[in-house]
């Protein structure tokens, strides 16, 4: 394939990765922003979403679309409930101490990983996509009689991949509206800005924390349900999204929705493109280098606020 079509293909792959990454990183950023908790187990809620999606899909014998639909509803809800439980049983008892919660979520990470290994097993298992039509993509070429449109061999995407991008975009926009327009969104923003004053105005901060932790996990799980028809579920699959989400949150700036989305696009797209043309390792090296540069020159992130 020539360079142009190849780049288009890589860009599309990158966009799928970026879409899923934006959702996952949004969950991490939300928890980090509102609760000041660094959730090291975030990737495991992603894994949980994928694993539950597999269980749900394989329990349904009807058309794969039903299994997938059920997974979309059940997996994020399950992950959210597990997260709320973890919040009530562990984080709350540590009074959300920033350092103690890092250690605690590392513990939660191993518990979830080992539980998945014992129940789901060490294999990677696929979930059938609800639909998967191959869509050939056209390319422009300058020939003897001017530009003409043709379909290069191998340049194609699938309807499911386009669906992933669209679904992520819909969730991101709805989430932004939810945050800025809804009553609970206002409560979350107030809690994030000043926890103590929120309490003096009747906001049940601990309940807000539980819901935020659950919501963060549900976003990661939803991202995983989207990706699992493309990438398969595996009990160790949480590591990469965790690392990339951290990178995105640092580059985008703490608690900034816009920063998270922009950084996820930047990192997700470049990860996809560099992986195709060079190697996935180089992509990770460059992303980590970018984090280092951001930390040195703009520690608050692209859209973050300077701390007083």
């Amino acid at each position: 394939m020539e360079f142009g079509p190849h780049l288009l293909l890589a860009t599309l792959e990158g966009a799928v990765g970026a879409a899923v990454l934006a959702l996952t990183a949004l969950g991490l950023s939300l928890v980090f922003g509102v609760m000041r908790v660094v959730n090291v187990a975030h990737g495991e809620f992603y894994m949980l979403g994928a694993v539950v999606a597999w269980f749900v899909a394989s329990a349904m014998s009807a058309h794969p679309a039903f299994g997938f639909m059920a997974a979309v509803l059940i997996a994020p809800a399950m992950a959210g409930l597990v997260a709320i439980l973890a919040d009530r049983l562990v984080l709350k008892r540590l009074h959300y101490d920033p350092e103690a919660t890092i250690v605690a979520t590392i513990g939660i990470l191993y518990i979830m990983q080992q539980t998945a290994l014992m129940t789901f097993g060490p294999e990677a298992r696929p979930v059938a996509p609800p639909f998967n039509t191959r869509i050939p993509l056209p390319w422009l070429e300058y020939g003897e009689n001017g530009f003409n449109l043709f379909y290069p061999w191998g340049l194609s995407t699938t309807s499911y991949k386009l669906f992933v991008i669209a679904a992520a975009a819909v969730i991101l926009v709805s989430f932004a509206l939810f945050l800025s327009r809804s009553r609970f969104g206002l409560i979350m923003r107030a809690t994030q800005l000043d926890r103590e004053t929120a309490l003096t105005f009747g906001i049940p901060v601990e309940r807000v924390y539980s819901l935020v932790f659950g919501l963060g996990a549900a976003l990661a799980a939803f991202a995983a349900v989207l990706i699992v028809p493309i990438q398969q579920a595996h009990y160790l699959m949480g590591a990469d999204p965790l690392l990339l989400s951290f990178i995105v949150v640092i580059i985008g700036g703490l608690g900034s929705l816009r920063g998270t989305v922009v950084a996820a696009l930047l990192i997700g797209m470049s990860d996809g493109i560099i992986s195709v043309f060079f190697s996935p390792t180089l992509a990770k090296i460059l992303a980590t280098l970018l984090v280092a540069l951001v930390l040195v020159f703009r520690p608050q992130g692209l859209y973050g606020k300077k701390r007083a």
Partner: protein
Amino acid sequence: MLKLEGVSTGYGPVQVLYGVDLEVQRGEVLCLLGRNGAGKTTTLKAIMGLLALHAGAISLNGHDLSALPAHDVPKQGIGYVPQGRRLFAELTVAENIDIGLMTRNKGPATRDRVLEMFPRLRERLAQRAETLSGGEQQMLATARALCLEPSVLLLDEPTEGLQPSMIRLIRETVEAMRREGVAIVLVEQRIEAVLTLSDRVAFIENGRSREVVDTKTLDRTSALFKKYVGV
């Protein structure tokens, strides 16, 4: 109405208050006076349920407040204007007011009434709180607390750093609330304001409550001021 009996509390292992007693009636302005670091802000935080009590009790009309979780304390009708205003800086004026209204599920009628008292805020509803001038921020902090339609109002140095016209507005607000029968605890450093605004003065020193006197018995040169505030 609001009553503190032998309240001892502090921050973690650091004890700040040692058996503070205090009582304020409806329609009364009680001024809390003491040096920097005496524990005035800490007393108000204790009332709001933000600090666990080591000993003592806080009650409102005989109901034990100290047994409630912090977020239920304001729902009993206690409005708090914290020191330094503590607005939700990145939220708009309207959103800050909404937070106040949500505390006790108050509606548009309350909102209108409060905005009537501070017309400047009505012109700036869509503006972020952090972009307001100092005086406007104090108005917003006060308005937010009044959105609870409180029966008890706690104000922590509401006139700190304000110019005379703004001080007058805050003062008029306090007087209006007193007329409506609100019980008011006011932390205020300026003797002038204490003398003209309060009904009683409670002195506090090193976290202990000292004399509580009728304001009428005080004047600018009273020995108590010298003793507890150093002026």
